[in-house]
């Protein structure tokens, strides 16, 4: 394993084609994220934050430029290669939680392990994480029986159950009230501090961004500032 940045992006461009119209979403992004860093990405809508996330998470390929994530060159990966990257190296947390509604919280976590090919039972140490997330007594409920805060904590548990190299959180507090937002942000900070989990978090909220070690500001498909 390399000792360099876990995410290394150079000259990243992404152009979406809508019919015959080309829409540039990223116009040359350079970004390094070290292992164990907690980086917040802020910017107005349409600034390219989500596209950057989708590329780092292997959900879509870059149009040009170089993107290395956990020592893998994403530009060289096939669709199957990007699928494998998502299985083991990347965990997603979404604004809308995105839990499978027909499964219990426990099974939502188990399905991530099943897909990664690591069995369905989490390792014993994961019990501690569940306690940290305060969901250890809510695992047998389906998402519809859980509060927004609980659903998001289940989503976080699902995202980290396979010990991914990177946790990508896209507006993780966007659908939560102030109290639950604070709880989720503290959990993310705890995961970062206790488990040295690398975290990239998109947010519109400056208070949420303050939980990160660094904040990356984006506008019009470019990084305009890193603080």
């Amino acid at each position, binding site marked *: 394993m390399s000792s360099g940045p876990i995410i290394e992006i150079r000259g990243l461009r992404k152009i979406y084609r809508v019919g015959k119209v080309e829409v540039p979403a990223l116009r040359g992004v350079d970004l390094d994220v070290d292992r164990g860093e907690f980086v917040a990405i802020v910017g107005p809508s349409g600034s390219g934050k989500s596209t950057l996330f*989708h590329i780092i998470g292997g959900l*879509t390929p870059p149009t040009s430029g170089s993107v290395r994530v956990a020592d893998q060159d994403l530009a060289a990966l096939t669709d199957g290669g990007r699928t494998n990257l998502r299985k083991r190296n990347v965990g997603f947390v979404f604004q809308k939680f995105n839990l499978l509604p027909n499964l219990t919280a426990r099974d939502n976590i188990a399905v*991530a392990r099943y897909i990664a090919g690591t069995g369905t039972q989490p390792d014993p140490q994961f019990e501690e994480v569940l306690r940290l997330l305060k969901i250890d007594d809510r695992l047998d409920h389906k998402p519809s029986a859980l509060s927004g805060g609980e659903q998001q904590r289940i989503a976080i548990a699902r995202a980290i159950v396979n010990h991914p190299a990177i946790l990508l959180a896209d507006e993780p507090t966007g659908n939560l009230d102030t109290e639950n937002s604070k709880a989720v942000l503290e959990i993310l900070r705890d995961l970062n501090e206790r488990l040295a989990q690398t975290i990239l978090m998109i947010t519109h909220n400056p208070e949420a961004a303050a939980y990160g070690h660094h904040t990356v500001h984006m506008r019009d498909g470019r990084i305009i500032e890193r603080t």
Partner: protein
Amino acid sequence: MIAKLVVENIKHKPMRSLLSILLIGVPVTLILTLVGLSHGMLDDAERRARGSGADIMLRGSNATAILSSSSATLPEKFLDFLARQPHVKAAMGVITHAIELPLVVNGVDLAQFDKMNGGLQYLAGGPFQGPDDVIIDRYYAQQKKKRVGDTIEIMNRPWRVSGIVDGGQLAHILAPLKTLQELDAATGKITFAYLKLDDPANTQAVIDDLKKQLGDSYPIWSMEDFASQLRESVNRQGLDEFIGVIIGIGVVIGFAVVCLSMYMSVLQRTREIGILKSLGGSKILILRIVWMEALLLGLGGTALGILMSYGARLAIETLRPASFQVEIVYIWWPLAAAITLAGASLGAVYPGLSAASHDAIEALAYE
């Protein structure tokens, strides 16, 4: 884990799942009932023929097809010739008259019949008391709701029920030979001659001897040959092709129902497909989920179809116990399952491929 996800998906939309299972089950019931009907009716015909007590049967020279309803062509006096043959213990002439298909009235001389099978086993009543009497079996009695002494309309004329016998004794309806010959303008003629031998072991020798004397113009069968000839004849008349058509319809319905159901399901679960993809779910995994759900619906449809075939049998045998006999043909259960699963698998292909090719980002944004 995938099985759990599939089962939960099916449980999540119970009405859609139940309707799909019902629609898949209908052709399964059709196939099983049709096969059960063909087996049941052939077995019934065979049982009744064996119940005559005869070892050999013979038809007129111009009636080669075993199932033909051609008129009586054998002279009744021919029975005397047959009765004189070595090893022949008794000879009986029967005239047949088709009524409401597939039912046939058999005209018999009860004295001859008694020598063949030792006498009819009556459940109620007894032999003919007059020329306009009939003896019916319990199935026909149940079908027509008749008892001994009741009048029954057959061949556009009234008959008195003189006796009710158990099933499997030559025919569902027996009438006096002379009466039926007069009604058919075939006085002195019979359709079949039945022969009882001193020892069934002599059957082939007697048949060979008769063929030597009569040539090939008279179809002669042992009762064993009759059963196999009956099945061959039925198959020749296109039963296998008919069952094939019904199977084809079953596959098409199974395919269409599963395709529609799974396509709707995939549309409804677009976001969930996006979630699975974000977790690293491959196209094969998504395809497997859709396929397994289709197979489970197919299995459910097969089970329901089997269950409904019992219901169909009960309905048919309650309404028309003499006309139609339905058997439960267990060997067709796995065949029906295979046919249904083939249809379901085909039906899952398009929705499965559609789901597998969903763009993860678009799927996650789906509301």
